[in-house]
């Protein structure tokens, strides 16, 4: 579980995060949504420890990040997995090399143990024939799967995803969403996803935080987002005609 308490972050005179508090529960897919410039990426980078909040605290299962020593922070980071928007796979390594990288770096496992673990996670993300391919030789969807495999290979407690299905076709995007959701439940991970994708919100948003101008505007689940009367949320989530009709149908059905 990750607890965020009143965090603020500024860059120069620009106040990006203006006091955000929330709780991200274990075994749930937590989504952060909001318009571009609302502070989502800065918020996620604060959760990852890449940015230090100017005020407020972030605690991971009761451990306040800012109060940990440098080595404890490093140990905690090894319990985090991250899926980047652009996958961020190491170009010079094969798929297998990318997934094996954290194992080689931080464990004392033998080569065969590492190989078994890599085979297992690649199979888990439905990638069986790409071990020896380089990132440039595989599709965007496959790159995302490799990134997920790399993120979960160390059995992380916390999984962070920055727009995991951007640039993917709708079918692949749903597959990736479902994969993240399944892995979250299967391994009881605290997952935080930064997304613009409304399909993700509807499909896997067990908890959703809507940010606006650096503030938490709304919080709820994918079921509650249908009912909300918060204008900022409805303007953002139901900005397309299709979603407006879906919402209308839902309300009519409910009445």
């Amino acid at each position: 579980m990750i607890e965020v308490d009143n965090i603020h972050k500024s860059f120069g005179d620009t106040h990006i995060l203006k006091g955000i508090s929330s709780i991200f529960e274990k075994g749930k897919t937590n989504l952060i949504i909001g318009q571009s410039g609302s502070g989502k990426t800065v918020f996620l980078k604060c959760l990852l420890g890449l940015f230090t909040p100017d005020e407020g605290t972030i605690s991971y299962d009761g451990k306040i990040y800012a109060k940990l020593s440098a080595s404890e922070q490093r140990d905690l980071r090894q319990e985090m997995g991250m899926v980047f928007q652009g996958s961020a796979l190491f170009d010079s390594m094969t798929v297998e090399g990318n997934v094996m990288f954290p194992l080689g770096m931080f464990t004392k496992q033998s080569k065969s143990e590492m190989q078994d673990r890599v085979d297992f996670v690649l199979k888990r993300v439905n990638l069986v024939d790409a071990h020896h391919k380089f990132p440039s030789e595989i599709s965007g969807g496959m790159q995302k799967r490799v990134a997920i495999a790399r993120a979960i290979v160390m059995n992380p407690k916390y999984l962070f995803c920055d727009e995991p299905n951007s640039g993917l076709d709708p079918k692949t995007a749903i597959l990736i969403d479902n994969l993240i959701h399944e892995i979250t439940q299967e391994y009881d991970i605290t997952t935080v996803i930064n997304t613009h994708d409304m399909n993700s919100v509807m499909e896997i948003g067990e908890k959703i935080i809507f940010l606006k101008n650096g503030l938490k505007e709304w919080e709820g689940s994918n079921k509650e987002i249908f009912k909300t009367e918060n204008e900022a949320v409805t303007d953002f989530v139901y900005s397309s005609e299709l979603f407006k009709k879906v919402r209308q149908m839902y309300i009519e059905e409910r009445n």
Partner: protein
Amino acid sequence: MNYLASIGSYFIMIREVFKKPTKWSVMRTLILKEIDELVYGSMGIIIFISFFIGGVVAIQTALNITNPLIPRNLIGFATRQSVILEFAPTFTSIIMAGKVGSYITSSIGTMRVTEQIDALEIMGVNSLNYLVFPKIIAMLFYPFVIAIAMYVGIFGGWTAGVFGGFSSSADFVEGLQLDFIPFHVTYSFVKSIVFALLIATIPSFHGYYMKGGALEVGKASTTAFVWTSVVIIIVNYILTQLLLG
């Protein structure tokens, strides 16, 4: 003020490079890979350039000896002095600042742009140690490249002098041996070690701290080359004054 801030950041980066070392089994592989990329991979261009530079120095010296009282062994002497003192360590380093430096900046810069450095940091890896330290160690082999550049440069001078009809082989070799000061080779190697550290670290700095996209990677590579060359020239002056002055 910006320049001062950059110089400060550069030295902070150097300090970070030596903190929290990467696991030795991983680092060993990285060092061998960098030796292959940065040192072994540069041998072809270094040999090619050194051979012709040595040849040109010999021809230019020969063509400028108009006084019959000046002995022909001056061609070998001038070639040796020029190649050992300046052409091999300094000129080669400027070439390496372009070839190796732009490779280092663009490879690290691309990793920055594509968030691969962020990925390393999130995993708990000291990305500066992982990326820059193996390059520094690999470049410690740079004096071997300079030694080869010296040898090939002098051989190029001998080839041009003898086969161009400017000098006999005996005169050239006599000139090579004339008033030889072994410390000049030491001076050259000292310079080459310092230049190696500059070639490894200045482009790394420009790549690591770059901001923007693909276009900025190209700009950072150019900036890195310019600054590495400028610093090499200035440090060359200082070292020459300190060691030979």
